[in-house]
């Protein structure tokens, strides 16, 4: 059974990749399995300079989900290009770099710096991180700003650009259209929903940053809905994510209209989540009457 999918700049042997921020730069999980098994790898966000991120606690557990407010901690794009990405070079798996920033200039600087690297195949433009005061979320909720930053980053980069959308909006299709108009090669959706948990003993939010991004199976219905809506309105490749735990979840995203998927939170519960899902995928596709991944994409729109 063919699991391969073709996306702008990406020839994927299968549609499953770890999501940004949930896989570091690959080293740790490479102790658990051969990264060649992955369809691609989306690495942790890069900003212009090194960032410390938010104070701890940075994570909390919720019903069927988790909150995180890492705050884009990363060693800065230069260091990432020089010290982190080369580790992934020997693997036969395309790497997608996640581009973050506080200003259009910073986004452009990160994209330009990444342009010098041969170790990546595409950019994921993160305009949706809810966990930093000036971390891009305003770009993710205002179509005009989203358009501008997408356009500038496209201009600055030779790599295809997948814009990662925030679900914290009333009209996801308007956001998708705005970035598509600005030249996005694809979309990546969804990032986390802003949430909070309060510690009853301490009488304050558990996460030091107060709010954090909600991920995991709790948000899957929201991700599916948004992908379905965007697919209905627009013809643009989508990397889908939000709560994927199993091969059946992957199929649900494909039916909704995702061309490939990313797995985030599931890695924490099961470091073997990605390879196990990939292994289950052919059987699952077969069970529901599909002969390839390509065949399933968007099929939830025909019933």
């Amino acid at each position, binding site marked *: 059974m063919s699991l391969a999918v073709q996306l702008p700049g990406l020839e994927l042997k299968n549609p499953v990749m770890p999501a940004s*921020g*949930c*896989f*570091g730069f690959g*080293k*740790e*999980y490479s*102790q*658990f399995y051969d990264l060649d098994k992955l369809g691609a790898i989306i690495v*942790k966000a890069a900003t212009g300079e*090194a960032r*410390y*991120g938010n104070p*701890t*606690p*940075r*994570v*909390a*557990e*919720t019903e*069927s*989900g*988790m909150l*995180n407010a*890492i705050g884009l*901690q990363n060693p800065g794009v230069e260091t990432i290009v020089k010290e982190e990405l080369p580790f992934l070079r020997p693997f036969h798996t395309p790497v997608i770099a996640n581009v973050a920033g506080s200003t259009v200039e910073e986004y452009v600087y990160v994209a330009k710096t990444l342009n010098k690297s041969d170790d990546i195949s595409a950019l994921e433009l993160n305009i949706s991180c809810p966990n930093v005061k000036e971390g891009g979320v305003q770009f993710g909720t205002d179509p005009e700003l989203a358009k501008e930053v997408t356009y500038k980053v496209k201009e600055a980069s030779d790599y295809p650009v997948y814009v990662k959308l925030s679900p914290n909006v009333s009209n996801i299709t308007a956001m998708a259209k705005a970035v598509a108009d600005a030249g996005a090669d694809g979309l990546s959706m969804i990032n986390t929903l802003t949430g909070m948990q309060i510690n009853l003993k301490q009488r304050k939010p*558990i996460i030091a940053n107060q709010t954090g991004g909600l991920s*995991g199976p709790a948000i899957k219905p929201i991700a599916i809905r948004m992908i379905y809506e965007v697919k209905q309105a627009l013809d643009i490749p989508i990397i889908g994510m939000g709560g994927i735990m199993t091969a059946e979840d992957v199929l649900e995203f494909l039916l909704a209209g995702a061309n490939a998927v990313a797995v985030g*939170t599931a*890695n*924490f*519960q*099961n*470091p*073997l989540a990605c390879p196990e899902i990939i292994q289950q995928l052919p059987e699952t596709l077969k069970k529901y009457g599909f002969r390839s991944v390509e065949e399933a994409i968007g099929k939830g729109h025909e019933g």
Partner: protein
Amino acid sequence: MISKQMLNIESHIKIAEDTFEVVLPLPDEIELKPGQFVHIALKGHMLRRPVSVADVDKEANTFTIIFKIFGEGTLALSKYRAGESLDVILPCGSFYPIENINVNHALIVGGGIGVPPLYYLGKQLKEKGVKVTSVLGFQSGSQVFYEDKFRALGDTFVATNDGSYGHKGFVTDIIKDLNKPIDYYFSCGPTPMLQAVTKQLEKEKGYISLEERMGCGVGTCYACVIPLRENPKQSKKICKDGPVFYANEVILS
């Protein structure tokens, strides 16, 4: 090499108020060192729970963890029974570097659920011929565990916050009156205790073991960082670079 394993619980007993000791098989080719932890998945919970290695029995090929019921996850863990299997990532994190340091008399300072990893440490120190003095703090007498086992390693003092057992007060009250020359201390416990202990012993060399809420437990997610004293804009990961740190390496807050 770190890996994910399904381990059949060999025994699961209550050893003090809300406190349980669980013995698990030690998988082949896995070495667990004092200070390291295991990361445990629990049905119905998104995130794993980190628990320290409290002992290793090389003959029986088993290891022990000790935990206290704190919230939903440890409550769930307390309901497992011998024979059931547990999904565990191991070994996680750094260890007390006792093979690389020269120590004659070690002071062990543990508080509450910070006590377990220090037992395995003390045992290894004693095997190496190191003199061990242990100071253990608990909330109250009903929560004291492993006192006899620590006594078998050397002088042992117990303090309880409410005075219901041993000395009334904090571990630092005991340390204050210890007139023994030590060359290293090793401490694990709640952050306020670690702050007090590292302050009190700031002239001594020491290692401490830290806790933080974790996502991955293996170093990918940046959930568990701690700022460095040298440069507070830099940090280390408790799950991977720690949980054991040189006492003055990090900023406790």
